[in-house]
């Protein structure tokens, strides 16, 4: 494959770390409803967005993810009462900081998707995929193996 071809055939690889109760359930609902969305996202399930160590996002970028999505319950709907609120502060600071050091904002995306929002989940994935695709392959912070 020539370099040009590789570029044309390039598909972004996106990691989504999502909470079990809302977004993961929302993703399941999208499936049950057969709502189609781009196949670029790999979901990692954790109990709560509150469990997501901000370093996971950094590590995912270093491991070569072209984009990282973090999604959980809407504020006020956390299965664990306030886990998503703890998470929100962490990711608000992380996202600003990563952008400050020169990482494109669209590489790290945070959102809320509830268990009943299958449609929204698909839209989120579509939106994230579009944005990451527009950025092209990740080349910052990526460990070359």
């Amino acid at each position, binding site marked *: 494959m020539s370099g040009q071809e590789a570029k044309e055939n390039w*598909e972004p*690889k996106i*990691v989504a*770390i999502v909470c*079990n*109760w*809302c977004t*993961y*359930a929302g*993703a*399941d*609902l*999208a*499936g*049950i*409803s*057969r*709502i*189609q*969305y781009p*196949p670029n996202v*790999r*979901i*990692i*399930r*954790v*109990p*709560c967005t*509150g*469990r*997501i*160590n*901000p370093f*996971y996002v950094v*590590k*995912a970028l270093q*491991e*070569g*993810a072209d984009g990282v999505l973090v999604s959980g*319950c*809407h504020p*006020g*709907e*956390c*299965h*664990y*009462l*306030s*886990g998503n609120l*703890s*998470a929100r502060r*962490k990711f608000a600071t992380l996202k600003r900081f990563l952008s400050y050091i020169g990482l494109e904002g669209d590489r790290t995306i945070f959102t809320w998707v*509830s*268990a*009943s*929002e*299958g*449609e*929204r989940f*698909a839209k989120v994935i579509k939106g994230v995929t579009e944005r990451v695709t527009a950025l092209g392959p990740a080349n910052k912070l990526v460990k070359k193996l």
Partner: protein
Amino acid sequence: MAQASEKIGAVMVVGSGIAGIQASLDLANSGLKVYLVEKGISIGGVMAQLDKTFPTNDCSACILSPKLVEVGRHPNVEILTRRTVESVEGEPGHFKVRMTKAPRFIDLSKCTGCGDCANVCPISVPSDFNENLSERKATYRHFPQAIPSGFAIDKLGTSPCKANCPTHISVQGYVALIATGKFKEALKLIKKDNPFPIVCGRVCNHPCETACMRGKVDEPIDIMHLKRFVADLDLKDETRYIPDKKESKGKKVAVVGAGPAGLTCAYYLAAEGYDVEVFESLPVAGGWLAVGIPEYRLPKDVLRAEIKVIEDLGVKIHLNRPVGKDLPFVQLQKDFDAVFIGCGTVNSSKLNIPGEDMQGVIHGVDYLKRVNLGEKVFLGDKVAVVGGGNVAMDAVRTAIRTGSKDVFILYRRSRAEMPAAPEEIEEALEEGIKMEFLVAPKRVVGEGGKVTGIECTRMELGEPDASGRRRPIEIKGSEFVVPCDALIPAIGQEADLGFVTPESGVAINKWKNFDVDGVTFATNVPGVFAGGDVVTGPQTVVKAVFAGKEAAVSIDRYLQGEDMAAGRAKDWTKDLADKADVSAVPKAPRAKYPHMKPEERRTTFQEVGIGFDEEEAVREAQRCLACGICSECYQCVDACIAKAINHDDTFEEETIEVGAVIAAPGFETFDASIRGEYGFGTYANVVTAIQFERILSASGPYFGHVQRISDGKEPKKIAFIQCVGSRDTSCGNSWCSSVCCMYATKEAIIGKEHAKELEPTIFFMDIRAHGKDFDRFVNRAKNEYGIRYIRSMPSSVKELQQSKNLLLKYVTEDGKLVEEEFEMVVLSVGLTPPPEAAKLAKALGIDLEEHGFCRTALENPVQTTRGGVFVCGAFGGPKDIPETVMEASSAAACASGLLAERRGTMITEEELPLETDIRGVGPRTGVFVCHCGINIGGVVDVPGVVEYAKTLPNVVFATDNLFTCSQDTAVKMGEVIKEQNLTRVVVASCSPRTHEGLFQENCEKAGLNRYLFEMANIRDQDSWVHMHEPEAATEKAKDLVRMSIAKAQFLKPLKPGQLGVNKNVLIIGGGLAGITAALSFADQGFQSYIVEKKPSLGGNYASLYYTLEGLDTKKHLAGLIDRVKKSELIQVYTGTEIKKIEGFIGNYKTTITTKDGENQFEHGVVIVATGGYELETKEYLYGQSDRVLTQRDLEKMIAEKDAKATAAKSITMIQCVGSRIPERPYCSRYCCSEAMKNALKLKEMDPEKDVTVIYRDIRTFGLKEDYYKKARELNVKFVRYDEDRKPEVRAEGDKLVIRLLDPILNETVELKTDLLALSVGTVPNPENAEIGKMLKVPTNQDGFFLEAHVKLRPVDFATDGVFMCGMAHAPKLSEDSIVQANAAVSRACTILTKDFIEAEGKTAYVNKERCAACGLCEANCPFSAIAVDLAEGCAAVNAVLCKGCGVCTASCRMNAVDLNGFNNEEVLAQIAAM
């Protein structure tokens, strides 16, 4: 079988909304077996349909789903769907419940919930879940998260077309398939029951169309020609449809006669694997089809093509081989294993009149045969045909085509009695054929042996004969002669059975037909079968086909040695789906079937009917009303790989023994079309609140986009009309539905959040925001969201034609008539008793109250009129979710109190094998990749994924399964785990949310720790969402599998911590709630300590005398206290304060200070029942004038007949004193009822007393509304005031004067009164905060305790082991406190009935060496489950309190805290493997 005297440790819960679910979980979690009975196909009730819940706007589905999953997977709960309770016999503690089970048509034990059946289902019906705003299939699941997750088929019964078709083809089925463009499938379906669609698509008498319900609307569906359409498509297709042939059975069958009966029999037998030979005397196959029916109706080449398929299937047809002389019948009997006779009726019946043997007389059968076999026959110019059947029509139309000029029919009855198909008659008339009715031939007139005419006589119609037609009677002397060149009698046919010789043994009856068994078509001789015209006399093609088909079944069974008749007799008139009301179906005319022009067809034998084109066929098929709902097209059967579908499922009866019954059938929303003035059902943009709820829902018909029904546009102005079907005696619903004010407010807010431009207006009578934090919610709606509230009920709604906007007419409070235009109207429909209430009550042996809700005991709102039968939820009266949940727990407490001694006797605890020690083994991973039928395998290359998995590190085994969740795979998985010595298991299939537990159990049963399991979701999150990208989906599946395997390497076997449970209870507070709880605990067998600060028990309840409903509260309380005193299980400390509470769930130690000093005891749970206080007010001269009282004072005066009360001529009450004001923005809930109670008592004392209530909103919610109504009837006056214009009170002599603005008169009025009673509100116990601190539980902004979840956990705290009841929670009525107290007991019993509390397996743990005790974990933990141990200098987790959210772990900079099951190593491995 239990002894009659022995109680049964099981409870039946009838109804599976949130009430039934909560009751079931409480019971099952406290050691009782639960049968959760549901009439529908899945559980969840109305809550599943809601978008958000008030007042927190939580997502309803999000909070309900985990409960559904929990109850669905609970080993002690058996969910029984599609059940109706028929009767309950026996005594409390031992009931026999008889139920019927309606068919589901899908076997839940096999259904995987994949939905393939629904994908292929051609029938769409309005979705009841989406309130008819979208469609679902006839094969369906109620909603995506439904439990049981399996599908069901919606059948109303057999569609009339199918029932009426002699061959019982699924007519509705193939019509539906045509409507959806599935033409091949339609043909296949037809051929399942009839191998002659080409023929029957042309010449059938189509009784299906006669039965078609569409005929009652306009005209029947043109079913026959639809059949022709698909048959012709097949005919023109390159490869024609030939059914799959079974393996040869090595047996031979002979068929006599190649007519429709014989060939049908041959077709089905050949398909079954038999060698079939057909013997035909004529030179052509097809019997009457070939030689009777003229070419212009059934072209010969078309018929030949149809028969060719039968030959292609392997049937040998011997033409010109008459059975008889050369081929004796007995020879056939010898040479073949069975014989079918279908030789038809080939001889014409005679007129039996003089001159019948003259030249020019030719019988219809012979005439048609000659023409059809190619002979040129010219009969002369003038031809008379005698008869009114199809043969007569065929003959007469053939005669026209062979050149005769003047051809006519002579028929002895009238046109109405003609047996020929109406379209045949019509076509004949079009072709210029004349018909003489009511004439009968008497004699053939002729010259020289040649016909010149026929003498006839006129007839008239007499009484009906055996055929049901009116018998023709000759009119004497009316003879006349009709001249003609030829005469064709076509009045009947007979069989020629000469070949059936006596030695064959086959009996022939007097009509020269065979007598056969009605079901099996067997003759008197074994192995010889007969069917078709030879049995029935001349009949229709379809009847012959049916006979041939049924005989084939018999022959197969006969040859296989099976019972031929078993299970075959079917009454098709039963379960007929013909009862639907079709009056509202819009008319749509039947497609005009294209014909050749009459003037063209007179000279040709070319086929008259041209046939539908595709567009016409589809349009015509779409006219079908889908009477049966399910069309029985059997597409689902083919699609279902799990073989779960059974269309023959039937009703069944069953009986279950239980100790108690809880009725929770819920409610029905009011049918808004009853209030016609609002235009529901007529105006598109008038919707019910529950429809609007679906419109708002992200999973609803419009995915949460607020839009109008008429044009899909986002509305701006939207009106909510309250009390539709509530507080409305005109429709018989006098009660208040309790929830509508709040849900309308919620829908208005959410609507506005979805569509910023929305301007909602709520039209109401009183705003009833009587629940916890409800008034705040309404205030927010008004102030933050700008929602407009108008105190008025619109009198009418009119639709504007152009815009479809709605014009509302209403009168403002000060009497102005206003007309206002809205773009959408939402009707806040009320709650009514469930439709099955009366039947259910009868079955349960309980009484209903006057409105049709369940009658309950005043002392206990969950007790019905029958002991051992309890009620919860809206069946006992309209109420909202938290009250329903409290009642559910309360009913569970009452049931389990009755059965406490039998706990644990009916539940099955599985013995698990000893866990394998995996130390030193290292990761040996087994990977199981699921096809899920075609759900995954149809998209993802499953074998490819398996091969890939095999190449990954530590994978020692990988395989694929058709269904990994099936029972046989579970067994296989267990074997593999043992054989391969697996230490990790990875399943790639569906969602861990639904299936993780199941697979973990498989591991456990094979001795592998359940936490050594990991899942990859390659269905819901892969194959289903990338259906059109198989390669990408396969890549994704590989990635997900790799990630799961990577994580699995780091999984650790976990042992959930266990902790002993102290079985005693601390109850803080000795009011009504506290003592009710204590007594209930005693019933359950648990010791409790009541700690009461005051010197005596009773709390606020002690100051009451009676309730609004008439309960004597003094007597009630005395009884309760007496029982408390007598109980050995209750220890009361009055005049006592709590000094200290230490510990946590299961292990508390409390120190109390009594007058005798300190005391200490241990307990496992805490009930907070600290109560509330009556507000002390200084308003309205209270404390200054002895004529100003509180309602409580007034109650006492009335009850004790105080002279002041008896003497007072005028009494005025002011409501909301100290409630619903900025510093106390909550409603005290009971005050309106208290005012009503005292007002009615005063009127009872003396109807002449002048009683006035000054109020802001009257909040007599639920069934209490009747008392408000009664008060108005008794002339109690009600005057409203606004918050910002409070009444003013001054003393004037021995009277009080109240000055206020009457908003209706819009002027200030002054009232003089002898007594003024103030409805003062409730304030929380000021010690709540202090007690909260001791227990680490929060209070809300008003100072009441804050529950774990306002909707679904109204009794629990977020901290496990602590529960609340009574006014500690919020202001409430005494009956509410009783319910909540019992509910708290039920919740507590889920802990106390266990010897050990099992912690979550996946909890946090601390690596002490890393911990620097910074306390960030503690600060972020929502459950106070982790705290810094200052002495140790590091954090410590309380595994019992830990819920495993992991917030602490992500907060920890040192990574000292980590989470089992999702630890850093595991997650990083997943990230690295991505």
